[in-house]
């Protein structure tokens, strides 16, 4: 049977291969159907899918989303510059948005919903606006802390206690955006010299600098370390998985990631895109999002911190960190971190 059919197989093969090449061309054409409203989301899948779902529920506007990592999304915007598929870029850290705006990839839109939003949280020309701020914090394994006779840490200095030796986990600034947020916030809080002194001291207690930003949560949850540094929103998700994590914040202040949103230049569905920005920045929109994600700090001042997060955020003090400065210093600080901290392990 095999013998007889082989001739047919070969023909099918040639046919399939040609089809395959045609298919490649087709995919791009097909993606650009007339003015379809597509959103590129760089936040975690869950954030993006919920936002799109709730937006459609509230406005009746249909939207399709694609979840891409920040870097991937940025590269794609560049690639599609002359012929963009998507109309909205949703979430992702501030520094990348600035570069995108500079390169002409974003469309300036000042939404009426943004008028109460603090000027430091939006671009004066409207290229981007902050959707939420996501603070990081300490996650601890209470059981192990108790055994060691340590309280839940509430200050940066708490982590310097020798009892923490080999018990603190944070991610590596070189490989994780979370870790750079932590590093640059420390520099903003203490000044560069003091910050590096601090990092040198805590280096003794660090078990490991993980590759991924969320790994410390998993490790602390497993009891492999006492305390880790991660974004609080990630910690909450891991708590939901069943990891025994206690969240706390240092009284001196913590840094945060500024998650933005913007209209893409040349948006095929400009009106829908504007409607999305209007909704996601509005009090109603952000209140709805808050029912899903309680540990974000929403940009609209009319949306107070959620009741459920109030206890965690009681001592929350956000470190003022200039995004432009942080982006400019990024390469230098990371290298310094490597040379002075990482290499001295």
């Amino acid at each position: 049977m095999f013998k007889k059919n082989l001739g047919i197989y070969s023909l099918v093969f040639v046919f399939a291969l040609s089809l395959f090449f045609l298919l490649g061309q087709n995919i791009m054409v097909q993606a650009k159907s007339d003015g379809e409203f597509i959103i590129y989301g760089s936040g975690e899948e869950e954030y993006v899918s919920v936002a799109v779902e709730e937006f459609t529920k509230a406005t009746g506007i249909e939207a399709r989303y694609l979840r891409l990592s920040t870097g991937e999304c940025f590269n794609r915007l560049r690639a599609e510059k002359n012929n963009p598929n998507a109309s909205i870029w949703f979430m992702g850290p501030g520094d990348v948005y600035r570069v995108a705006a500079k390169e002409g990839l974003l469309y300036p839109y000042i939404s009426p919903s943004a008028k109460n939003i603090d000027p430091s949280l939006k671009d004066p020309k409207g290229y981007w606006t902050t959707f939420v701020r996501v603070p990081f914090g300490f996650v601890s394994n209470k059981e192990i802390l108790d055994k060691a006779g340590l309280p839940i840490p509430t200050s940066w200095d708490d982590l310097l206690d020798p009892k923490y030796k080999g018990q603190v986990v944070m991610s590596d600034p070189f490989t994780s955006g979370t870790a750079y947020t932590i590093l640059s916030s420390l520099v903003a809080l203490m000044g560069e010299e003091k910050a590096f002194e601090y990092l040198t001291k805590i280096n003794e207690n660090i078990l490991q600098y993980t590759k991924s930003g969320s790994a410390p949560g998993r490790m602390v949850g497993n009891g492999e370390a006492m305390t880790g540094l991660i974004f609080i929103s990630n910690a909450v998700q891991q708590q939901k998985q069943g990891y025994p994590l206690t969240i706390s914040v240092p009284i001196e202040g913590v840094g945060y990631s500024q998650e933005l949103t913007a209209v893409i230049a040349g948006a095929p569905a400009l009106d829908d895109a504007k409607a999305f920005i209007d909704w996601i920045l509005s009090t109603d929109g952000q209140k709805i999002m808050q029912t899903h994600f309680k540990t974000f700090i929403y940009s609209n001042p009319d949306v107070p911190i959620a009741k459920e997060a109030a206890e965690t955020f009681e001592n929350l003090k956000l470190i003022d960190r200039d995004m432009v400065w942080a982006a400019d210093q990024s390469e230098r600080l990371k290298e310094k971190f490597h040379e002075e901290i990482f290499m001295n392990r």
Partner: protein
Amino acid sequence: MKNVNEINTSKFKRVQNGIESLFIPVGISLMLIWIAIFIIYPFINMFSSSIFVDGEYSLKYFSYQRSAYYFKIFKNTLMLGLSTASLSTILAFLLAFGITQVKIKGKRFFHFIYLLPTITPPFLFSLSVIILFGRRGIITYHLLRLSTNIYGYPGLVLAQVMTFFPFAYLLLRSLLVNLNPSLDEAAFVLGANQIKKFKTITLPLMTHGIVGAFVLIFMFSIADIGNPIILGGDYSVWASEIYASVVGQYNLSLGAAMALTLIIPVTALFFFQKYLENKNNFAMITGKPSQSKLIIEIPKVSKFFSIFFILFSIFIVLLYLMILSGSITKLIGINYGLTLKHFKTIFSGDSRGIKTIMDTLILGGAATILGTLFSIILGYILVRKENLPGRNILDFFLTMPLALPGVAIGIAYVIGFNKEPFAWAGSALIIIAILTIRLIPYDLRVIVKGIKQIDVSILDASYILGGNDYKTFTKIVAPLIRESIIASIIYNFTRAITTISAVIFVVSVNWDLVSAAILNKVEEGKVGQASAYGVVITLVAIVLNLALINYGRKKEIEA
């Protein structure tokens, strides 16, 4: 071929031959288009993007790597590669030697167990290692009350050896099986004892094979990203650093420069290994494996190997048990309550689980079919058309993707297929292409070997009797190499559904792969779901492998 056509007087036959004679030209041109777009283009592109910074020529990203930090990770990479390769080769040699030369019971069972790790999705062994030997590990903490740090070098070596040893085992086993038994017999007749025979005959004949296995595993180790991402800790290695530069820094140019740096030594090693393999073929295969193979029957030796095999098998099974229990407990390490919720989440309607598994099977299936068919036709052309101009260059380009570390290919694809005229990133096309180019080199070797075993006179007879290339190919070559075809299908499918390094950058929301989904789930701390994916895909792979092997056996009996 002209002569052949003249013999055919029937008009119908001539027309048919007209179409069929297109077989070779069409095959060659498709192959050229394929190589140009999917192999040459992305690499030229990657090269240029690493030396042009903002449109200007600069070696910034290469000079960057001269810092102490990169020297350190280079050293780490080397250390890890050497350790993993040595341990894997020693282990694999022991296993292969025991299986082929020593009298023990249950060989088929042990063989099956040793091959199991080839179908493990990435990351999962790493997770098992953490669960068993981590600070809170079941063995290290709960059993032995130790507080160990498994992250970094020790854990990585352990996980890599367990992941890669089967490849060395397969290689060494096939050499041992093919050792000419008449040498053994001669030694026996001449009065050499078993140990002397091993020292003077078996080992020297195996040298090339052992070096080959070592180089192969070394290459696997330094190209591996799955284990270092999870288990690496502070012990950074080159490949995982490349991954991080793209995902954490959005710096494709740095990633490209780092990938290019890795390409040179790895390619050199690859061709060294290929050279050894060729050399080996002459040295060893002198006849068919004979029935009257001499097998070591010293009770002490048998006992040693039996115990060793049993212990090692238990260890492999233990690693799998950890994956299985991860999938059916609420949260392994913390809450051992039994649950089916992870499977339910994956298979529930609104999750992406079913889609991810289906995508994996569809894309893996497509790549399997494409890769196999491609290789059959290419193999035929490469073997039969020896005077084809540029034949060696073609062979080189087709083999290259196997030599390159997966991350390098991934980066080349991200850079190359994110812009016009080939803005295909995120499409099924790209994922299938990246899987296929990685499969073709292996398939090609298997199939070329198969074709070469066909007696040339049969093919010549076909030409003389009026068969053209197409007829000779379909009626004679293809049926005769059925076994090679089945072998390459099995390999393709298994690789396609478990690979991670090359595809991690090209998966998208439209098309997802299980291996990438497992990484995401691990990152989110959803170890249960990650394990459940692993269990599902391992089962699918086992079932498909067994089905194909059985199919092959059945056909053999029929024929």
